[in-house]
Protein backbone atom coordinates (compact mmCIF):
# COMPACT_ATOMS: atom_id res chain seq x y z
CA UNK A 1 0.00 0.00 0.00
CA UNK A 2 1.29 3.47 -0.84
CA UNK A 3 -0.21 6.87 -1.36
CA UNK A 4 0.02 9.32 -4.20
CA UNK A 5 0.78 12.43 -2.17
CA UNK A 6 4.47 12.80 -3.07
CA UNK A 7 3.70 12.61 -6.76
CA UNK A 8 0.82 15.05 -6.34
CA UNK A 9 2.94 17.48 -4.33
CA UNK A 10 5.46 17.54 -7.17
CA UNK A 11 2.69 18.59 -9.52
CA UNK A 12 1.40 21.48 -7.44
CA UNK A 13 4.75 22.51 -5.89
CA UNK A 14 5.11 25.81 -7.74
CA UNK A 15 1.41 26.49 -8.15
CA UNK A 16 -0.24 26.10 -4.77
CA UNK A 17 1.15 27.02 -1.41
CA UNK A 18 0.22 24.06 0.77
CA UNK A 19 0.96 22.18 3.98
CA UNK A 20 1.10 18.41 4.31
CA UNK A 21 -1.10 16.97 7.03
CA UNK A 22 -0.42 13.44 8.15
CA UNK A 23 0.28 10.76 5.60
CA UNK A 24 -2.22 11.43 2.87
CA UNK A 25 -3.67 14.90 3.16
CA UNK A 26 -2.61 18.44 2.44
CA UNK A 27 -4.14 21.79 3.13
CA UNK A 28 -4.13 25.05 1.16
CA UNK A 29 -6.00 28.33 1.09
CA UNK A 30 -7.80 29.54 -2.00
CA UNK A 31 -9.79 32.82 -2.16
CA UNK A 32 -9.80 32.96 1.65
CA UNK A 33 -11.25 29.48 1.91
CA UNK A 34 -9.37 26.60 3.48
CA UNK A 35 -9.30 23.39 1.47
CA UNK A 36 -8.16 19.99 2.69
CA UNK A 37 -7.24 17.50 0.00
CA UNK A 38 -7.19 13.74 0.46
CA UNK A 39 -5.10 11.53 -1.83
CA UNK A 40 -6.11 7.86 -1.92
CA UNK A 41 -3.89 4.93 -1.01
CA UNK A 42 -3.23 2.44 -3.79
CA UNK A 43 -5.60 -0.06 -2.16
CA UNK A 44 -8.30 2.58 -2.52
CA UNK A 45 -8.15 2.19 -6.29
CA UNK A 46 -11.92 2.15 -6.28
CA UNK A 47 -13.33 5.27 -4.66
CA UNK A 48 -16.66 4.12 -3.30
CA UNK A 49 -19.06 5.45 -0.67
CA UNK A 50 -17.01 3.89 2.17
CA UNK A 51 -13.91 5.82 1.12
CA UNK A 52 -15.96 9.04 0.93
CA UNK A 53 -17.28 8.49 4.46
CA UNK A 54 -13.72 7.94 5.73
CA UNK A 55 -12.49 11.08 3.92
CA UNK A 56 -15.35 13.11 5.34
CA UNK A 57 -14.54 11.88 8.87
CA UNK A 58 -10.91 12.89 8.34
CA UNK A 59 -12.14 16.40 7.64
CA UNK A 60 -11.14 16.63 3.97
CA UNK A 61 -13.34 18.47 1.50
CA UNK A 62 -11.61 17.46 -1.74
CA UNK A 63 -10.65 13.97 -2.88
CA UNK A 64 -8.24 13.96 -5.78
CA UNK A 65 -7.52 10.71 -7.59
CA UNK A 66 -5.11 9.77 -10.37
CA UNK A 67 -7.09 8.33 -13.29
CA UNK A 68 -4.27 5.97 -14.27
CA UNK A 69 -5.02 3.50 -11.46
CA UNK A 70 -8.00 4.87 -9.59
CA UNK A 71 -11.69 5.17 -10.40
CA UNK A 72 -14.55 6.84 -8.57
CA UNK A 73 -18.02 5.36 -8.67
CA UNK A 74 -21.03 7.50 -9.57
CA UNK A 75 -22.45 6.81 -6.12
CA UNK A 76 -19.25 7.99 -4.43
CA UNK A 77 -19.29 11.25 -6.39
CA UNK A 78 -22.94 11.87 -5.46
CA UNK A 79 -22.41 10.83 -1.84
CA UNK A 80 -19.40 13.15 -1.72
CA UNK A 81 -21.63 16.06 -2.76
CA UNK A 82 -24.03 15.38 0.12
CA UNK A 83 -21.12 15.28 2.61
CA UNK A 84 -19.34 18.29 1.13
CA UNK A 85 -16.49 16.25 -0.39
CA UNK A 86 -15.65 17.17 -3.95
CA UNK A 87 -14.39 14.10 -5.83
CA UNK A 88 -12.27 14.91 -8.85
CA UNK A 89 -9.48 13.53 -11.04
CA UNK A 90 -6.07 15.18 -10.84
CA UNK A 91 -6.57 16.88 -14.21
CA UNK A 92 -9.80 18.51 -13.09
CA UNK A 93 -8.17 19.63 -9.84
CA UNK A 94 -5.27 21.21 -11.69
CA UNK A 95 -7.63 23.01 -14.06
CA UNK A 96 -9.75 24.33 -11.21
CA UNK A 97 -7.17 25.22 -8.56
CA UNK A 98 -3.73 25.32 -10.17
CA UNK A 99 -4.21 26.91 -13.57
Amino acid at each position, binding site marked *: *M*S*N*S*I*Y*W*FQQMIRDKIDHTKIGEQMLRFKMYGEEKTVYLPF*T*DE*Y*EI*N*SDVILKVSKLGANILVF*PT*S*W*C*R*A*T*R*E*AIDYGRTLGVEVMPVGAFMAKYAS
Partner: protein
Amino acid sequence: MAQTADSISSFVPIVASGVSFVSGLLVAYFSGWVAKKNRQVERATDALQIQLNEFYGPLRALLAENSQIYEEFGPGRFQGRTATTANSRGETWNSLKETVLVPNLKSIRILIQNNWIRSDIAEKRHLRDLMLHCIAFCEYDKAPNEMYQKFKYKKEWVESIERDIALLKEKLGE
Protein backbone atom coordinates in the same frame (compact mmCIF):
# COMPACT_ATOMS: atom_id res chain seq x y z
CA MET B 1 -54.20 -90.98 -44.87
CA ALA B 2 -51.84 -90.72 -47.81
CA GLN B 3 -53.86 -87.74 -49.02
CA THR B 4 -53.44 -85.97 -45.64
CA ALA B 5 -49.70 -86.59 -45.74
CA ASP B 6 -49.60 -85.13 -49.27
CA SER B 7 -51.48 -81.98 -48.27
CA ILE B 8 -49.20 -81.50 -45.20
CA SER B 9 -46.10 -81.91 -47.33
CA SER B 10 -47.41 -79.33 -49.82
CA PHE B 11 -47.89 -76.84 -46.91
CA VAL B 12 -44.39 -77.24 -45.53
CA PRO B 13 -42.63 -75.17 -48.21
CA ILE B 14 -45.31 -72.48 -47.89
CA VAL B 15 -44.90 -72.35 -44.11
CA ALA B 16 -41.12 -72.46 -44.47
CA SER B 17 -41.08 -69.62 -46.95
CA GLY B 18 -43.53 -67.70 -44.73
CA VAL B 19 -41.27 -68.18 -41.71
CA SER B 20 -38.21 -67.18 -43.68
CA PHE B 21 -40.05 -64.10 -45.03
CA VAL B 22 -41.16 -63.02 -41.54
CA SER B 23 -37.73 -63.65 -40.06
CA GLY B 24 -36.20 -61.69 -42.96
CA LEU B 25 -38.55 -58.85 -42.19
CA LEU B 26 -37.67 -59.03 -38.49
CA VAL B 27 -33.94 -59.02 -39.27
CA ALA B 28 -34.40 -56.06 -41.64
CA TYR B 29 -36.49 -54.21 -39.05
CA PHE B 30 -34.03 -54.99 -36.27
CA SER B 31 -31.01 -53.92 -38.28
CA GLY B 32 -32.87 -50.73 -39.28
CA TRP B 33 -33.67 -50.09 -35.61
CA VAL B 34 -30.04 -50.72 -34.62
CA ALA B 35 -28.81 -48.39 -37.38
CA LYS B 36 -31.28 -45.71 -36.26
CA LYS B 37 -30.15 -46.07 -32.65
CA ASN B 38 -26.52 -45.85 -33.77
CA ARG B 39 -27.26 -42.70 -35.74
CA GLN B 40 -28.99 -41.19 -32.68
CA VAL B 41 -26.01 -42.06 -30.47
CA GLU B 42 -23.66 -40.63 -33.11
CA ARG B 43 -25.67 -37.43 -33.34
CA ALA B 44 -25.74 -37.08 -29.53
CA THR B 45 -21.98 -37.70 -29.39
CA ASP B 46 -21.42 -35.12 -32.13
CA ALA B 47 -23.56 -32.60 -30.22
CA LEU B 48 -21.52 -33.20 -27.06
CA GLN B 49 -18.29 -32.88 -29.01
CA ILE B 50 -19.49 -29.62 -30.58
CA GLN B 51 -20.45 -28.31 -27.12
CA LEU B 52 -17.01 -29.21 -25.83
CA ASN B 53 -15.05 -27.83 -28.78
CA GLU B 54 -17.11 -24.84 -29.77
CA PHE B 55 -18.42 -23.63 -26.43
CA TYR B 56 -16.55 -24.87 -23.36
CA GLY B 57 -13.13 -24.89 -25.04
CA PRO B 58 -13.14 -21.23 -26.15
CA LEU B 59 -14.95 -20.18 -22.95
CA ARG B 60 -12.30 -21.79 -20.76
CA ALA B 61 -9.46 -20.30 -22.84
CA LEU B 62 -10.91 -16.76 -22.69
CA LEU B 63 -11.50 -17.04 -18.95
CA ALA B 64 -7.99 -18.39 -18.37
CA GLU B 65 -6.48 -15.45 -20.25
CA ASN B 66 -8.52 -12.86 -18.36
CA SER B 67 -7.82 -14.48 -14.96
CA GLN B 68 -4.12 -14.60 -15.63
CA ILE B 69 -4.00 -10.96 -16.73
CA TYR B 70 -6.00 -9.94 -13.65
CA GLU B 71 -3.63 -11.86 -11.36
CA GLU B 72 -0.50 -10.44 -13.00
CA PHE B 73 -1.54 -6.86 -13.73
CA GLY B 74 -4.81 -6.23 -11.85
CA PRO B 75 -5.46 -3.69 -9.09
CA GLY B 76 -4.11 -6.13 -6.48
CA ARG B 77 -0.68 -5.50 -7.99
CA PHE B 78 -0.77 -1.75 -7.34
CA GLN B 79 -0.49 -2.25 -3.59
CA GLY B 80 2.80 -2.01 -1.83
CA ARG B 81 4.30 0.04 -4.64
CA THR B 82 5.20 3.69 -4.93
CA ALA B 83 2.65 6.05 -6.41
CA THR B 84 4.77 6.37 -9.56
CA THR B 85 4.88 2.59 -9.98
CA ALA B 86 1.15 2.39 -9.26
CA ASN B 87 0.68 5.01 -11.92
CA SER B 88 2.53 3.07 -14.61
CA ARG B 89 1.04 -0.26 -13.48
CA GLY B 90 -2.39 1.35 -13.58
CA GLU B 91 -1.80 2.49 -17.12
CA THR B 92 -0.71 -1.02 -18.14
CA TRP B 93 -3.84 -2.43 -16.52
CA ASN B 94 -6.07 0.12 -18.25
CA SER B 95 -4.47 -0.66 -21.58
CA LEU B 96 -4.84 -4.44 -21.09
CA LYS B 97 -8.45 -3.94 -20.06
CA GLU B 98 -9.16 -2.08 -23.25
CA THR B 99 -7.24 -4.34 -25.62
CA VAL B 100 -7.71 -7.81 -24.10
CA LEU B 101 -10.09 -8.08 -21.16
CA VAL B 102 -13.10 -6.21 -22.47
CA PRO B 103 -12.96 -7.80 -25.97
CA ASN B 104 -12.66 -11.21 -24.27
CA LEU B 105 -15.67 -10.49 -22.08
CA LYS B 106 -17.66 -9.44 -25.13
CA SER B 107 -16.69 -12.71 -26.86
CA ILE B 108 -17.70 -14.72 -23.77
CA ARG B 109 -21.09 -13.00 -23.74
CA ILE B 110 -21.65 -13.82 -27.43
CA LEU B 111 -20.51 -17.43 -26.88
CA ILE B 112 -23.03 -17.86 -24.05
CA GLN B 113 -25.82 -16.26 -26.08
CA ASN B 114 -25.08 -18.43 -29.13
CA ASN B 115 -25.00 -21.63 -27.07
CA TRP B 116 -27.96 -20.83 -24.83
CA ILE B 117 -30.08 -23.79 -25.95
CA ARG B 118 -27.35 -26.22 -26.97
CA SER B 119 -25.63 -25.97 -23.59
CA ASP B 120 -28.80 -25.67 -21.54
CA ILE B 121 -27.59 -22.39 -20.05
CA ALA B 122 -30.97 -21.46 -18.56
CA GLU B 123 -30.33 -24.30 -16.08
CA LYS B 124 -26.75 -23.23 -15.28
CA ARG B 125 -26.59 -20.38 -12.80
CA HIS B 126 -22.81 -19.95 -13.06
CA LEU B 127 -23.02 -19.33 -16.82
CA ARG B 128 -25.90 -16.88 -16.48
CA ASP B 129 -24.00 -15.02 -13.74
CA LEU B 130 -20.89 -14.99 -15.90
CA MET B 131 -22.87 -13.42 -18.74
CA LEU B 132 -24.15 -10.72 -16.39
CA HIS B 133 -20.60 -10.13 -15.17
CA CYS B 134 -19.49 -9.54 -18.77
CA ILE B 135 -22.15 -6.86 -19.24
CA ALA B 136 -21.58 -5.31 -15.79
CA PHE B 137 -17.79 -5.14 -16.19
CA CYS B 138 -18.04 -3.35 -19.55
CA GLU B 139 -20.56 -0.88 -18.11
CA TYR B 140 -18.46 -0.41 -14.95
CA ASP B 141 -15.38 0.27 -17.03
CA LYS B 142 -17.18 3.06 -18.89
CA ALA B 143 -18.85 4.52 -15.80
CA PRO B 144 -17.87 3.00 -12.42
CA ASN B 145 -20.83 2.24 -10.19
CA GLU B 146 -21.39 0.36 -6.96
CA MET B 147 -23.99 -1.98 -8.47
CA TYR B 148 -21.01 -3.77 -10.00
CA GLN B 149 -20.20 -5.28 -6.58
CA LYS B 150 -23.13 -7.65 -7.14
CA PHE B 151 -21.74 -8.87 -10.44
CA LYS B 152 -18.05 -9.18 -9.61
CA TYR B 153 -16.15 -12.14 -11.03
CA LYS B 154 -16.26 -15.27 -8.88
CA LYS B 155 -13.52 -17.88 -8.99
CA GLU B 156 -16.01 -20.68 -8.30
CA TRP B 157 -17.51 -20.14 -11.77
CA VAL B 158 -14.37 -21.66 -13.27
CA GLU B 159 -14.72 -24.68 -10.95
CA SER B 160 -18.33 -25.13 -12.09
CA ILE B 161 -17.26 -24.86 -15.74
CA GLU B 162 -14.52 -27.44 -15.10
CA ARG B 163 -17.20 -29.75 -13.66
CA ASP B 164 -19.37 -29.22 -16.77
CA ILE B 165 -16.37 -30.09 -18.96
CA ALA B 166 -15.55 -33.20 -16.91
CA LEU B 167 -19.17 -34.36 -17.17
CA LEU B 168 -19.17 -33.88 -20.94
CA LYS B 169 -15.90 -35.79 -21.28
CA GLU B 170 -17.32 -38.58 -19.14
CA LYS B 171 -20.36 -38.82 -21.42
CA LEU B 172 -18.03 -38.93 -24.40
CA GLY B 173 -16.01 -41.68 -22.74
CA GLU B 174 -12.82 -39.61 -22.88
